[in-house]
């Protein structure tokens, strides 16, 4: 491969524009390599967030040719050859600068979700007896690297801007991880229904499509949570019991 054209969004919260750059693309390069090369060669102050460059930390999320991706895991050779590559910041979050967005909302959301409440330990040394079948299901959710690409692509957040009413796929996965944690005894279905806006999700599965960890967000996390909410709040027998309790 050789010289490739890039169109990179430059600017801040007050606005910005696409700027054109050209750099040499060599074998095996990923989009983040190209961005770094441009940064070193011709745009020292180009802002990009990254850490591990190995798909493990979830820092370098952006939109490459309109698709939410990790720049470090997007190989240049997988993009259409000879065509210009467009790189933009995630659209769901406010821009800080260039490709860097303000994702602090995600951190605030997580803080309000009740943390793990473990049942008393099973063994004297403070440990628990947990079977592999019980860890397997939750380990899928715990693969999440918090890249927030699922939040970026979710139309409830992206188009409808319901950040105050809906916690987004990432935190539904997080809540599912807590709800299905084998030693946890807390219940979070009331919050899911009333505060976390689980009803807003209409199962379009966009989040699942963009997840770089291939977590089946909709099928394995969100739908089971919806079922739990339905069980707890819409099951006629349980509803009756709630009335009697009052």
């Amino acid at each position, binding site marked *: 491969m050789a010289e490739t054209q890039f169109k990179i969004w430059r600017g801040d919260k007050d606005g910005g524009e696409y700027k054109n750059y050209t750099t040499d693309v060599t074998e095996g390069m990923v989009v983040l390599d190209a961005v770094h090369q441009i940064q070193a060669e011709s745009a020292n102050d180009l802002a990009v967030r990254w850490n591990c460059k190995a798909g*493990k930390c979830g820092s370098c999320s952006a939109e490459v040719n309109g698709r939410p991706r990790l720049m470090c895991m997007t190989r240049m050779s997988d993009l259409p050859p000879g065509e210009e590559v467009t790189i933009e910041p995630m659209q769901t979050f406010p821009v800080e600068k*260039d490709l860097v967005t303000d994702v602090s909302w995600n951190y605030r959301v997580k*803080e309000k979700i009740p943390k793990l409440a473990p049942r008393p330990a099973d063994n004297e040394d403070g*440990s628990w007896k947990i*079977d592999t079948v019980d860890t397997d299901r939750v380990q899928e959710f715990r*693969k999440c690297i918090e890249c927030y690409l699922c939040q970026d692509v979710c139309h409830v957040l992206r188009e409808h801007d319901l950040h105050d009413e809906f916690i987004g796929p990432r935190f539904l996965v997080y809540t599912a991880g807590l709800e299905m944690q084998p030693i946890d005894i807390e219940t979070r279905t009331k919050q899911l229904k009333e505060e976390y806006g689980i009803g807003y999700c209409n199962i379009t599965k966009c989040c699942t499509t963009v997840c770089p960890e291939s977590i089946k967000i909709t099928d394995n996390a969100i739908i089971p949570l919806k079922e739990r909410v339905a069980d707890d709040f819409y099951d006629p027998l349980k509803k009756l019991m709630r009335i009697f309790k009052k």
Partner: protein
Amino acid sequence: MSEFQIHEYDVLVIGAGGAGLSAAIKASASDVSVGLICKSLLGKAHTVMAEGGVAAAMANVDERDGWKVHFADTMRGGQYLNNPRMAELHAKEAPDRVRELEAWGALFDRTKEGKILQRNFGGHRYPRLAHVGDRTGLEMIRTLQDHGIHQGIKFHMEVTVFRLIKEGDRVVGAFAYDREKGRFSLHKAKAVIMATGGYGRAFKVTSNSWEYTGDGHTLAYDAGAELIDMEFIQFHPTGMVWPPSVRGILVTEGVRGEGGVLKNSDGKRFMFDDIPDNYVNQTADNEDEGWRYTQGDRDARRPPELLTRDHVARCIVNQIKAGKGSPHGGVFLDIAWIKEHIPGAEAHIQKKLPSMYHQFKELAGIDITKEPMEVGPTTHYAMGGIHVDGDTQMSTVPGLFAAGECAAGLHGANRLGGNSLSDLLVFGSRAGEYAAQHAKGVDQVTISDDVIEGLKKEALAPLERFDESPGDAQGPYQIQYELQDFMQALVGIVRVEDEMQEALGKIGALQEKVKSVSACGNREYNPGWHTALDLHNLLTVAEAATRAGIVRKESRGAHFREDFPDKSEEFSKVNIIVNKEADGSMNVRQVPTKPKTDEQIAIIEENA
């Protein structure tokens, strides 16, 4: 001059990897106010990349294990330059720290009985590493993060500390800037804990991220703290070598723990040819025994692929030098071969090593369940760091503590895989506990505006230099690349006096260049400016590593000298310390190693 924010804490933690989060959680449990500054977003620190597992002698898989064996293994791996007190505390306390993580939500892989499963790893006598597939670090940092956010700790994300502030001989705070806007902030603190990780970015081929620029080492050194064992830098034997853009990315030792073997271009398992004397008794002498070991046969000895990292890395270098390397300058690491032994091996590999499967598939287009990987050594870990007290983790400067990779002592001349994650938990917790205790006994001080104004001016200098004369720009990236190139070539896996002296000369020249480094743009999220400020740190640790390397005229652990290829009796008894003199120069001196107790000596002999 611009305004700056002021924060006041009893304990200030710098760094939010495993050590920093452990420290902050423990400190906040002692009823003190805790602030935590991290260079990136929370949950992104380097711990997230740790793969293989956390070493703790819980004896869940093999009841013969216990703290004494773990202690002896750690000392042997470190070639007895370790601080024995730290090695003992670490071995004793790691199991409790792992169980604590479980109580906070970590879900490790399980044994059939529902206990935490433990796996084999290089230099560990018994299966000892608690793990979650090959993403143990992610599980750990996420658990600490998700627990830590509910402990009343104040987090400052994407903030970089520029200098520590002292009053008299005490550290009393830190001066920092944020990435987003370049705003300055003063963090007053009664005790400061360094948990900033290492400095792999001083080298060209590294598994470390941009953050790893030796910040904590240098901040402490500039504040008068001693650094110790700086000549020992771990080159992990297996990093990716192809394609070029991913060179250095880690390939977990877990691949070998699960039965992966190293081969040269002749298809030969070369590791059997070179087994060090002090490991002969513990190492398999045929391929079948090695395989049985990885599959849990308690009577089998470990395959030579699971010897210590320093040794395996050197064997790989020797193969490459002898012309028996792989096409892209590495050797072959083969896990696909286990299909000879295991039905359904492909699914088994994907279950045990999911992120390795993913990493090679996505980045190199290689299916590790079908074909061998190409691997070669990569700069991975700094054994050396801030000289701390083994019990309290306080440095030689009052009020300044350190834990994790930026502290030193536990690992000696070479770290065993898995011992870093347990190090973070054990000594992060200890640092938090003792820093909180220290904070309760001292007062907050007033820091004068003059000090702050001076620091602001210094921090802004690279931007101002560019504005004044953009034509003479000395770019920060070029200096960084130059340093990485020659450190890799001259102070790498195989060292020799002349080359290290040459490196020292080049470091000196770059230190002069840095005085005129400039950065274009403004203060808002400007990586060029940040890189310019990090250069001082990188050059300081590079100088310390090189000077210490020159003084240690022997080969031991990770420090291999072609001109002194053997161990020396004289150097077996000393650690090397560097500190900053009043005139700003770097002083290097030898100190006797910390004495072992009679009990410790007996344990080492029993477990020979």
